């Protein structure tokens, strides 16, 4: 099983790195890192903070864009281009196919984000910044967040067209980034209205269904207040949460994909 999943993952990675779109995204990301100095000069406040903020945001954005643009077509493209015929007629289980494609895109996103992170980690000290473990943790957790979004994109890709998948993945991403505010919002709502409203139920549903992506965002703490960084145990819990959510999405993708006829 492992060798088949690995073969599919490496093949997905090889396909992706030969696509020029990937390099375009990388160039845009590197340009954003370089442009952060200009932003720092024209901004009010600490120039270093702006460079760090922009650099980390560029790395995160590159990963999210890859997830949405490539991830949402990952499975659909295989079906549409009929490459799936010659793969699923080999001793490959459908779950292995989903997992292989997923890991291949995570590897692609990881390598792209690593290249951009390397650019940032060289650029930042040149302007007097120090590479600290909170910065490295923020970069690593950006990748974990992207791994969760890719799993969501793959799940939608197994069920619908790339455009619909892209819309749904973007909605889940946006909701996931905002979901950690839902409990506070529900508290306020509970104080002003009588409980059990439809809105509260929907908010609760949204809270439990969407990934809590806010917990992966360590950028603010890493740049502005390293003292607010979660402890090692909390970071591990966040990583487990991400892995669990991604696994649930991939299981959903497999269940959908197993029912499909080609």
């Amino acid at each position, binding site marked *: 099983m492992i*060798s088949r999943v690995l073969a599919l993952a490496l093949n997905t990675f090889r396909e992706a790195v030969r*696509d020029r779109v990937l390099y375009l995204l990388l160039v845009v990301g590197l340009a954003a890192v370089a442009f952060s100095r200009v932003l720092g000069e024209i901004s009010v406040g600490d120039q270093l903070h702006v460079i760090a903020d922009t650099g980390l945001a560029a790395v995160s954005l590159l990963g999210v864009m890859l997830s949405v643009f490539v991830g949402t077509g990952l499975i659909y493209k295989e079906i549409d281009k009929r490459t799936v*015929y010659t793969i699923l007629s080999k001793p*490959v289980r459908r779950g292995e196919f989903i997992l292989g494609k997923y890991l291949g895109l995570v590897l692609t996103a990881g390598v792209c984000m690593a290249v951009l992170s390397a650019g940032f980690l060289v650029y930042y000290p040149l302007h007097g910044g120090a590479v600290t473990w909170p910065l490295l943790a923020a970069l690593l957790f950006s990748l974990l967040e992207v791994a969760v979004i890719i799993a969501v994109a793959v799940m939608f890709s197994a069920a619908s067209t790339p455009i619909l998948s892209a819309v749904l993945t973007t909605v889940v991403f946006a909701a996931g980034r905002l979901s950690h505010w839902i409990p506070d919002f529900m508290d306020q709502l509970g104080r002003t209205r009588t409980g059990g409203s439809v809105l509260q139920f929907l908010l609760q549903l949204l809270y439990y269904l969407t990934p809590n992506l806010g917990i992966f965002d360590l950028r603010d703490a890493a740049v502005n207040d390293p003292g607010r960084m979660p402890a090692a145990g909390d970071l591990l819990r966040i990583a487990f949460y991400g892995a669990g959510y991604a696994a649930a999405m991939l299981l959903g993708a497999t269940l959908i994909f197993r029912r499909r*006829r080609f």
Partner: protein
Amino acid sequence: MTAPAIAARSLRVVYRPGLFQRPRVGLAGLDLEVAGNEVFGYVGANGAGKTTTIKTLVGLIQPDGGEAWILGQPAADAAARSGLGYAPENPYFYEYLTARETLEFYARLFGIARAERRARAGDLLERVGLAPAADRRVRQFSKGMLQRLGLAQAMVNDPKVLILDEPMTGLDPVGRHDVRNLILDLKARGKTVFFSSHILSDVEALCDRAAILHDGRLVACGRLSELLSGKTLAVELTLAGAGPELERQLAALALRARRDGAELHLAAADEAAADELVRRAVSGGAAVRSLVRTRESLEDYFLRVRREAGGSGAAGGAGEGGA
């Protein structure tokens, strides 16, 4: 007892295209058995269910009823595909990979070791005539080259059973000749080859047995020598030097008559009628240039069986494109 290479019992596939569209029957209780080391031809009109059968056998479609086995293992199990090779009609590959990389990738899915993968990819590319294009990206390939690569990937695991969906599609006469030889070579190596084709002369030339599918069910299956009656359909005569009066007399006795310059072509219903035409032609001063007996071909048989089964034009069963 050895399990058949391919078997299907009461295989049923129904397509449900949408909530408000009527379900279409792709396969209506198909029974099929292909023995080891057979070359088996699978014939049917567009929409008869050939591709649906093949996709069910290779695990791309789960049937609504019945069962299928490959070498005794349920076709739905991934393990059953270890000994199977499948070439789809109009195969598609990853465009950014070269032909060699493509074959090595497929070999890897079978857990074949790196050195062996390399060797096999090289051998197969040689065998299907793609060695000169081995390191060219697949996106630059013509339709015929893709078809050849499709056959090569089907053989990457040295399978005991090969299922080929319209393997001659998109090939030029040289390509068709090569594929015919390849199928015969596979049989000589002890493999079982199951292939669908619209080109009935290929089926007739290559197959030990053939089956005819109509609206999702088999309407004929057996050895070609048993299926084709061998009876004379017509005797074709070509005469030279027949004058207008003789032509008029002979045409009245023949099934068909057609003049082509100095030659007169006649068709007699059977040997006795042909004898009579020859006798009169010679006594009337004409010379016999050729005399050919036409037996029932697979095409004649196919059309007859379809007529008897109630089919006429394109069948109304499963759509081959989506099926």
